[in-house]
């Protein structure tokens, strides 16, 4: 008897919490980020293997790029083959500005701004060029950037070493120390949660609806007073900003930036993540990144060797052919199935009662 009110109170708290989460998806994203932080903590103290940390860091990077690409591919119906190059702009740009002696925050900001400028240029290009011509134009940009990365001396040839990063002017973090690496991981997870919130806000805003309108029919959207040019430029700029943020995180966590990695194959991997995860889904991007990058790095590599490309290629085709909504949609289908069974059983009961 004495316990009951306490239990009720707990239940009340729980209910209040549940409604809070339901009403504010932002809280969900924050919790998701915190869970990841906890996961990183477990692997840094040795409960989970420590290389999980590194793999999940890459998954986070891919998730952020995929969130940006999803705005293009899923919402606006535009395809970009240069998303990997913009991670490169973020990572290498941060490195170059850091080597000039700027503080990390300003270096990161400058790198993101320079990526955004290139992104908006592509957006402007897209005002004239469309369809497959646009996709290949982004390939031009990717090739030009690749040439710049590998030939300019300031990017250091093979890789650009960054070394210990100083945050906020006093917090020095090096990836060589296990505890500090966990802090770096925690920062990444939180940034990812923030980017998820930003994506949510964009999707639910006027611009998000405009993106979707353009992807359905540009002419109808234009007739409704939505300027396709404005929103195309916006979509491209946002996507490149996301990729550049991912690049900054790459520079922060790995503390060096290779120059040859940012090619077409990685862009393809990111497209695979968006497709497998599910167009227009936010958690789907994380799920896709986990399936494409995580599964092959964590499990398949030990069993079968380096099969990541084959695996993601096959998955990509299978998902497009048989499950075009993406893996994130499985939840909805399972729930539908569950209600179907429940409803059917109830219906049977009702029929029994009547007879």
């Amino acid at each position, binding site marked *: 008897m004495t316990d009951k009110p306490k239990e009720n109170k707990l239940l009340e708290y729980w209910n209040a919490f549940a409604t809070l989460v339901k009403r504010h998806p932002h809280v969900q994203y924050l919790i998701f980020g915190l869970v990841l932080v906890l996961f990183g903590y477990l692997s840094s103290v040795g409960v989970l293997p420590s290389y999980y940390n590194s793999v999940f860091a890459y998954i986070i990077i891919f998730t952020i790029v995929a969130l940006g690409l999803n705005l293009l*591919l899923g919402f606006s119906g535009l395809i970009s083959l240069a998303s990997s190059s913009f991670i490169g702009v973020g990572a290498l740009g941060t490195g170059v500005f850091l080597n000039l002696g700027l503080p990390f925050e300003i270096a990161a900001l400058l790198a993101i701004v320079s990526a955004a400028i290139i992104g908006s240029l592509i957006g402007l290009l897209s005002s004239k060029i469309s369809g*497959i*011509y646009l996709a290949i134009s982004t*390939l*031009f940009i990717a090739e030009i950037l690749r*040439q710049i990365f590998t030939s300019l001396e300031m990017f250091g040839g093979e890789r650009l070493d960054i070394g210990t990063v100083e945050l906020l002017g006093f917090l020095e973090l090096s990836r060589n120390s296990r505890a500090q690496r966990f802090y770096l991981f925690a920062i990444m997870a939180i940034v990812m949660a923030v980017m998820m919130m930003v994506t949510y806000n964009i999707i639910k805003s006027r611009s998000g609806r405009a993106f979707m309108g353009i992807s359905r029919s540009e002419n109808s959207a234009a007739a409704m007073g939505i300027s396709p040019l404005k929103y195309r430029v916006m979509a491209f700029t946002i996507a490149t900003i996301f990729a550049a943020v991912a690049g900054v995180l790459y520079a922060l966590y790995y503390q060096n930036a290779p120059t040859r990695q940012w090619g077409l*194959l990685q862009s393809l991997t990111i497209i695979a993540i968006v497709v497998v995860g599910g167009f227009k889904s936010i958690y789907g991007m994380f799920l896709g990144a986990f399936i494409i990058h995580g599964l092959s790095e964590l499990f398949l590599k030990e069993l079968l060797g380096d099969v990541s490309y084959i695996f993601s290629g096959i998955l990509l085709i299978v998902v*497009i052919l048989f499950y075009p909504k993406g893996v994130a949609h499985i939840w909805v289908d399972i729930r539908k199935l569950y209600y179907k069974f429940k409803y059917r059983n109830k219906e049977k009961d009702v029929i029994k009662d009547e007879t």
Partner: protein
Amino acid sequence: MDNFLSILFNSLQTGSVYALAALAIVLIFRTSKTTNFAQGSIGTLNAYVGALVLSSWGWSIWAVAPVSILTAFLTGVLIDTFIIRPAAKVNRIAKQIITLGLIMIITGITPFLFGVDPYQLPRFIPSGSVDVLGASLRFNTVFTVLISLVLMGAIFWFIQKTKWGLAIRVTASNEVTSKLMGVPTKTVTMMSWATAAMLGTLAALIIAPSGSVNPNMMFNVQVSAFFAGVFGGFQTFYGPVLAAFIIAFARNTTAFYVTDIWGDVLVYMVILVFLFFKPYGIFGKAPVKKV
């Protein structure tokens, strides 16, 4: 003058390789309404088959080439039957992404099938050259340029003058209507995939001796062929072929006379600016869209 001539000869060789690949891409673009991003990878796969036959049985390149072309034909048919045809209903972007998936599968599978060491393929005509105004012109270059030109001429003739060519053109213009008119569009699409795979493989066999047979050997060709497609316009069959030669020549000239490293970048920039003002390429016209 001799420098200019050797650039010209060089451009003719690379240009014909680009042109073969570009023609293959346009063929598929027109009949299947998708861009085959995996064009280069299919060529690479079959070049590997050729290199494997050559190194394990010691056949000459003249015997190996038909084997590669045959396997290319099979690859094209298989891809069309098992991947492209079931995907007839998916939207355009998803179709393109499927071919991107093909790149990943092929790139991933080559180390398992053929090992990680690069192979070597010899030239069709191993030695011998002739002096033209001070620039040396290899017999092999003459041969490869000639065979590509003859082949492309034959394909253009086929497309323009024969009944099957007519079938290709009507499928390209409107698949549903041509199906209603009794054109076997399935066979047409399958044959275009097979032909495209064979053209890509031929391009790979021509380009292989100047480097080695490795998973990335066709990357440059592939990208250039796409650029040629965009630059020449996908609406015609001849536009991309001409653009391929223009791009090869422009790249070699800028690389030699202007800058070594930034030649490509310069050419790409010029093409991008050009596309901004003429979005459908040199020979293309804006497609008429019914709303």
